[in-house]
């Protein structure tokens, strides 16, 4: 075991890790940040997506030691400073973009990264960019609407087409 240090949600943190400790295990078990979920073991489902130095990554497919010293952001760091829901989070609630909630942290993190790169995505771009996040509950309809709404577009009109 080695002590691995990084910045998570703006705070410098450290926890013990082995070479094989995945970033997601470091977050969940080392830091108790259980909002990041594990839904598969083949890097497909995206429930574990977090931001590392501003980029969306699958935390189940990164070793904690490989991102030592990085800036990590998780779902626990996405609300506004006053504790209210952030823009993406609020759009997901407004448009019923979640049901069981398990894939939701990954969806929110992927969406936030998408909108940072592409502030006004088309429906097709949203669907393409969500390719690595699997949801079994929603049929994606309301997730895509929520992403479009979070980008400030008229999601209702776009979905009715």
């Amino acid at each position, binding site marked *: 075991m080695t002590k691995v240090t990084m910045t998570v949600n703006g705070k410098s943190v450290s926890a013990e890790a082995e070479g094989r400790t995945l970033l997601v295990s470091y977050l969940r078990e080392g830091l108790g940040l259980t909002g990041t979920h594990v*839904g*598969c073991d083949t890097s497909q489902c995206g429930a574990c997506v977090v931001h590392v130095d501003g980029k969306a990554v699958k935390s189940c497919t990164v070793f904690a030691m490989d991102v030592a010293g990085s800036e990590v952001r998780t779902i626990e760091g996405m609300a506004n400073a006053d504790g209210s829901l952030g823009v993406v989070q609020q759009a*997901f609630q407004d448009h019923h973009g979640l049901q069981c909630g398990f894939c939701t942290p990954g969806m929110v993190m992927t969406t936030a990264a998408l909108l940072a790169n592409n502030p006004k995505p088309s429906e097709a771009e949203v669907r393409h960019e969500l390719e690595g996040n699997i949801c079994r509950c*929603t049929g994606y309809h309301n997730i895509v609407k929520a992403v479009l709404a979070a980008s400030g577009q008229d999601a209702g009109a776009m979905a009715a087409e």
Partner: protein
Amino acid sequence: MPKDTGIGASTKRREDVRFLTGKGVYTDDLSLFGQAHAVMVRSTVAHGRIVSIDTSAVEAMPGVLAVFTGEDFKDVGGNPAGWLINSRDGTPMREPKRPVLAHGKVRHVGDAYAAVIAESYAQAKDAAQVLSDATEIEELPAIVDMKAAAADASNRVHDEIPDNICFDWGWIEDNRAAVDAAMKAAPHVVTLELTNNRLVPNAMEPRASIGEYFPGTGDYKLTTTSQNPHLTRLLICAFVMGIPENKLQVVAPDVGGGFGSKIYHYGEEALVLAAAKRLGRPVRWTAERTESFLSDAHGRDHVTKIELGCTKEGDILAIRTETYANVGAYLSNFSTATPTFLHGTLMAGPYKVPHVYVNVKTVFTNTAPVDAYRGAGRPEATYSIERVVDKMCRELGLDPFEVRRRNLLTPDQFPYTTPVGLVYDTGNYQATLDKAVELADVAGFEARRAESAKRGRLRGMGLSTWIEACGIAPSHLVGILGARVGLYDAATVRVNATGTISVMTGAHSHGQGHETVFPQIVAEKLGIPASSVEIVHGDTAKIPFGMGSYGSRSLAVAGSAMDRAIDKIIAKGKKIAAHMLEAAEGDITFADGKFSVAGTDKAKTFGEIAFSAYVPHNYPLETLEPGLEETAFYDPANFTYPAGAYICEVEVDEGTGKVDVVAFTCADDFGNVMNPMIVEGQVHGGVGQGIGQAVLESTSYDENGQLLTGSYMDYAMPRADDVPFYTVDHSCSTPCTHNPLGVKGCGEAGAIGSPPAVVNAVIDALQRGGHSHVTHIDMPVSPNRVWQAMNA
């Protein structure tokens, strides 16, 4: 302005806030002091005799605390099937024991025969690998193909079951001769052989369980990913481990989707309890996705021959089916009900068809157990009917919309007794069909088809008119049919002294939004803010009883129990109010949160009554107990019968065979709707899964029983770019006639009605595109299959 609270409002979900901020608490999120980690050791062969397990190979490994094998559970009970089915000859089904850990034989890849408990997950995992290597299993030939299994008596999944058949069921057997005669006399007979593809439910949260034992009291606690904790408690206590029911608490906290797969009790739950007792420490287990693929109950997996007799004008005269249903290696809890009473009883569909006979042979194979998955039996029935009706239209050159209109039951025919034993209480199937035709712009299809053709794509349209029976279920009826439990539900409504309310419900929310919807109903009925109402679910220690959430039953059954309990609260409130207002009880009315004396301005608010019940200073103590808390058990009088019409449009790429679902329209009749936003979300999700079944999802075992589609690398889950926006409508409402809320249930509809609409659309596209030899393609209509069919 649409209302934003109460019944019928699209109230935003309160549970979302915790899920959106990472504060949900799923089973694996819990961390207990002193916890140890269990890893299951699973068979890598489909069928074999366990020769030896050398536990000494791991006992001294770092961190290893205990090793369990089938030997440790050979003297406790097995995990039972919940429904007894008799064969056509009257003999009861064969019920092999399903042990906690495989003993003697392993019967499918992933069958757990041992478990290692260690200080850390990594240590347990390391040791499990070593134990797997230190196990000798004599491999036997795998039994994978259902028909071959039933034909070959020499190779047996269970040594005591000679033909691998669990039962051979006829429904309704007494009608068989009449159906045969009607089929023989029919001017035209359509025959279709089809497969309803095996699916892996794939709730995004893998199964997980944590066992605790408290030596001071002898109490156990199980925290687990369950859709119905009370049933899990019952099965563990009464059937598997013999723990007194009052000594086991089962908690299902936030659960990340179920779709049927988390209804059932699984061996890991008993294992963590036994291990917790032996070690005196909490023991946790969480499935890896690979384990979910191998050991969760799968769904569907029927091979069916369906025949339909009709007139040349398209009047359906008779339907006859023969189905082989794969039950896998063991009987999961609902596995015998799914292909029978949830399937055969629906085989008349929404049509006035006089003669129906269904035969189902359920077969054991060396594959994972198969059980109910979203829709459970009803999607299989709907797919068979709607595909064969579509084929009839093509063979006779009839319009599929007109043929449906000709055969659909009409509103004046309700209540309607089907030839397969159900009584449909109400419906208006023409209305939903008309609504779907309007919303899908059927009239504009030709123009869209021409536009697709310009882009080199074949466009087709497919229709499905479907019905289901849900709101499971009237106990007296299912009892006659072989169910070993009642299927009522329960609720306690506790009015606290300060007027806030806790509702303990037997339903379990794992995505359905009960925490939001149930308070909407309470608030509407009691005239108080929904924010004053809290829903408590998923804990046997807090809730009187319940049968959980599946079969679109939460509102129809548990919601009805809650409604009845609220009525009892109001009735008691009237007694209290009569005393306080010095009026006759019969003169008290309750509306808008106030108990009033009719015809006067004398009134007490709901809060005042609640306070009085708990501070009974001015209270009729001689005739009325203090307190304001009521429990109701509700047993439905009938199933509920949601129905609807779905229209799908697809484009087919001739060069690659790829099918794109480009439009999907649903017109549903769910009866009364409590929260339209949530109802629509349920339909979206069901349709997404239905499109997945129709186009993408295939569960494939090779001849050795190895699962070829054991991860998301090979099992094609629908992704955001596989589906379009859906058009959904639920305005054609005929309220259920027999439950107090008039609700029918909406959870399974999408998954039931959509697969045939998709496949019908694909056949339509190919036929219109000149591939007239293609009359059927089995699901999933993968690019490879569609291309092969076009080029056959």
